[in-house]
């Protein structure tokens, strides 16, 4: 018996009998079908309006698919894309648990290797799944050198369960478990410097990206996809609900996070800083903070608020100094350059009549 | 089989079981694993039979005791449960008869450590002890032991072990314990 006939037999036994082509008019291609990009994540998912994570995932899938398998940690992305009986994924996708996406991806990759296939494996997790509960299995995956791109959608709190603080929540941000009050000014601790920890595994490539800079993000995904070995990308993905900003401001907020220095855009190869996205016009952190309800208490008439604003500014300044975010090669993609648009669109999806 | 952690009691038990297997017998060898580390007294068990062995209890009333290290004789309880008429094989330069008299059982001694140092340049008494046991007991041909050993070693080490087996076998009286073993 061949593998193929065995598979057909099992599909007959357990699976759904194919219902024929879903396209009612064979031969016609709907405009949606004809999009000049790979649609790994389809419409009809149930993300909130203006969801940064949904956007980030779609951007990643565009340049990662179609020959990929995705292992997705429990979290918003998993929940809003796969409410049975409808899935928004157009790639093979598996969700197991909150804390094991990296390990599941390891297993998929091992299976691909065992079967001599080149299909790339992606692991997706939020900051809870990555910075916190799944940190161990991620570390194991990196150490074992699995050929997996791990993408962390960083929205800086446990959003799936309703905005609880994570180790990625920025200092002084309020969440339901780090509220501000008479005794507290939001989260007391700092945001974990995950990229440095990841890079310390001496893996080929670890980088940060932001939904506000899609071309840069996709360049990083393509680069990571081309590497044989473990790679890591953390994508700053605003959550309008959790950060308490208007849904239309998702990109604006993300952009300002980068431009004020609080979310440095860095690339590390084998543990060493290899590239940064320079900031041409550094903004004060307040430009970023004032857009978000989670920092509203920092604008109260309160000396503690002023101190915390100064603290966050100092953290941003630290990033700018540490990573050299204001200098660098003028030819590099920078926050201005990568946000620029031109007539006729991005090179990848260029469309001209 | 009494030994100390790190001396290879379990390996010896397995080797004895393998010898029985090579001789066409049913066998069962298992350790009494504890959390003990290197140096602590440990015990391993071997059952042999001509029919299938179902019993999986620890052996409380052995026919034969093998003591890998004579310092273990300081514990008077070492012969507890030894069947009446049972025998003890001790790795020691001391006289087996005296030891047997002390514990009230038959006892044969063999300086397996010395033999091992001579042949293997290392103080591993297992092969010598088993060769002595097989010879004393006479149930399994010495070739079964040689075969079992061949399954574990090769090259120089195998040759050294085979030479050791011959020397150890020569050091004891063949078949001395044969009649006692029939009901094992």
């Amino acid at each position, binding site marked *: *018996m*061949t*593998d193929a006939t*065995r*598979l057909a037999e*099992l*599909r007959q*036994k357990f*699976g759904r009998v194919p219902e024929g082509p879903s396209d009612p008019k064979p031969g016609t291609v709907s405009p949606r079908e004809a999009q000049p990009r790979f649609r790994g994540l389809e419409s009809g998912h149930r993300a909130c309006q203006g969801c940064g994570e949904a956007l980030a995932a779609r951007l990643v899938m565009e340049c990662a698919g*179609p020959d990929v*398998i995705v292992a997705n940690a429990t979290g918003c992305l998993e*929940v809003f894309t*796969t*409410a*049975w009986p409808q*899935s928004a*994924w157009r*790639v*093979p*996708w*598996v*969700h*197991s*648990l909150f*804390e*094991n996406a990296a*390990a*599941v*991806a*390891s*297993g*998929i*990759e*091992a*299976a691909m290797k*065992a*079967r001599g296939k080149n299909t790339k494996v992606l692991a997706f997790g939020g900051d809870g799944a990555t910075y916190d509960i799944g940190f*161990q*299995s991620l570390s*194991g995956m990196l150490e*074992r050198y699995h050929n997996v791109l791990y993408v962390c959608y960083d929205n800086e709190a446990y959003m799936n369960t309703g905005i609880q603080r994570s180790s990625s929540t920025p200092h002084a941000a309020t969440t339901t478990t780090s509220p501000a009050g008479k005794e507290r000014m939001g989260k007391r601790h700092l945001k974990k410097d995950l990229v440095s920890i990841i890079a310390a595994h001496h893996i080929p490539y670890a980088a940060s990206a932001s939904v506000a800079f899609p071309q840069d993000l996709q360049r990083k995904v393509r680069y990571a996809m081309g590497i044989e070995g473990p790679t890591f990308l953390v994508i700053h993905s605003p959550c309008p609900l959790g950060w308490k900003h208007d849904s239309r401001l998702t990109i604006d907020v993300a952009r300002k996070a980068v431009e004020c220095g609080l979310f440095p855009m860095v690339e590390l190869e084998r543990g060493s800083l290899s590239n940064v996205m320079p900031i041409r016009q550094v903004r004060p952190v307040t430009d970023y903070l004032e857009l978000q309800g989670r920092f509203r208490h920092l604008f109260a008439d309160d000396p503690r608020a002023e101190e915390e604003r100064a603290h966050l500014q100092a953290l941003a300044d630290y990033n700018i100094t540490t990573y050299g975010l204001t200098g660098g090669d003028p030819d590099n993609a920078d926050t201005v350059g990568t946000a620029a648009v031109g007539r006729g669109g991005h090179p990848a999806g260029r469309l001209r009549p | 089989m009494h030994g100390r952690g790190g001396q290879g009691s379990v390996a010896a*038990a*397995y080797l004895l*079981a393998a010898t*029985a*297997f090579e001789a066409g017998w*049913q*066998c*069962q*060898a*298992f*350790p009494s*694993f504890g*959390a003990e580390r290197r140096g602590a007294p440990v015990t391993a068990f071997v059952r042999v039979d001509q029919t299938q*062995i*179902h*019993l*999986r*209890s620890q052996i*409380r009333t052995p026919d034969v005791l093998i003591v890998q290290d004579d310092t273990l004789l300081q514990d008077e309880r070492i012969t507890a449960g030894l069947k009446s008429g049972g025998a003890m094989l001790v790795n020691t330069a001391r006289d087996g008869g005296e030891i047997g008299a002390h514990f009230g059982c038959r006892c044969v001694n063999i300086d397996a450590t010395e033999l091992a140092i001579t042949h293997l340049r290392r103080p591993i008494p297992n092969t010598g002890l088993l060769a002595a046991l097989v010879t004393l007991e006479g149930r399994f041909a010495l070739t079964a032991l040689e075969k079992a050993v061949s399954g574990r070693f090769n090259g120089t080490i195998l040759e050294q072990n085979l030479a050791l087996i011959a020397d150890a076998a020569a050091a004891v009286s063949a078949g001395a314990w044969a009649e006692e073993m029939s009901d094992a």
Partner: protein
Amino acid sequence: MREALEGSQAIARAVALCEPDVVAAYPITPQTHIVENLSELVAQGDLHTEFVSVESEFSAASVVLGAAATGARAYTATASQGTLLMAEVLFNIAGMRLPLVMTVANRAVSAPLSIWNDHADSMAVRDSGWIQLHATSNQEAVDTTIQAFRITQETELPVMVCMDGFILTHTMEPIDLPDRMAVRDWLPPMAFSRSLDPERPLSLGMLVSPDYFPEIRHSHHAAMQQALAVIEEVDTSFHSRFGRAAGGLLTVEGDPEAKVGILAMGSTVGTLRAGMAHYVEAGPARLITLRSFRPFPAEALREAVEGLDCLIVIDRAISPGLGGVLGTEVAAVLSQSARPPHILNHALGLGGRDIPETVYVDLLDAGRDPDAPRFSVFDADMTKLAPEDR
């Protein structure tokens, strides 16, 4: 070919015969030798598999989950705490209905810390939805392991092969390992109907609302029920191909006219069998060996106890506050019989307490004692307890 092999080594060799694509495991006593032997086979080139040395049992289970989801043949092994660390994943694997084989080298669960055998670990995950098969000997463990790879494919349910830690895993005994080509021939090619495949993308492990959840659980239960037949068929097929069976769903031996029965799982059976042969004077008894704990062969069990007045169920696990796990389940199942036997349930050998041959006699004696408790930790020495706790 028959060889004298340590149980763990035999399992490793059996797994290798099944040629898994991916093996992931994390060492834990008493499963360690299985992992070590597999590693050695890989190192020597006797097993071509992706051997993933994970950083925890949790990841071990997760790795094989991922591998299985792609349609790869995957294997892992664990014990005790490792089983519990895996627990979340085990439920997940079963809920996703993935084909997978795992050995559990049964061991007590801490605290108190015990490295020795009992069944607390696999019992703790009995509701995870895995098939759980118990081996009484290393030969059965080997044969069940090979069968498990076939069962899991036929059912798309994961299979846990339980074998007693140390008592089996660390015991050397003669083992007949099937021929590699024969196993290759007997096992169907590995395939999984819902494999993760870029050519045919689908989503596994989705969110399910109350609109579908009960149906899915029912479907799982139904699949487990249907697996009963598969377990038997596979054992029959194995028997006809390799000349021996591994125990079907359950086996019955002893005096068919006996009014007293003893039911047990795992290595205890061997000791009871020896005791039954040895202590003929203790009276006739029927010995029932339950191999398939999940799915639970209710119908087969009802037939097996037909005619018994008393059934003594041996547990190697306890559900504190209730009693024996197996005993409670047997009682529940037999309560639906027309004439259920009186059921006594005794926990034996917890935490590695040696079970002597004489236990057979003691059990039968207890079975005849009208004042005997319905449940006891049979080998507990009450003198070691404070009077209030006896």
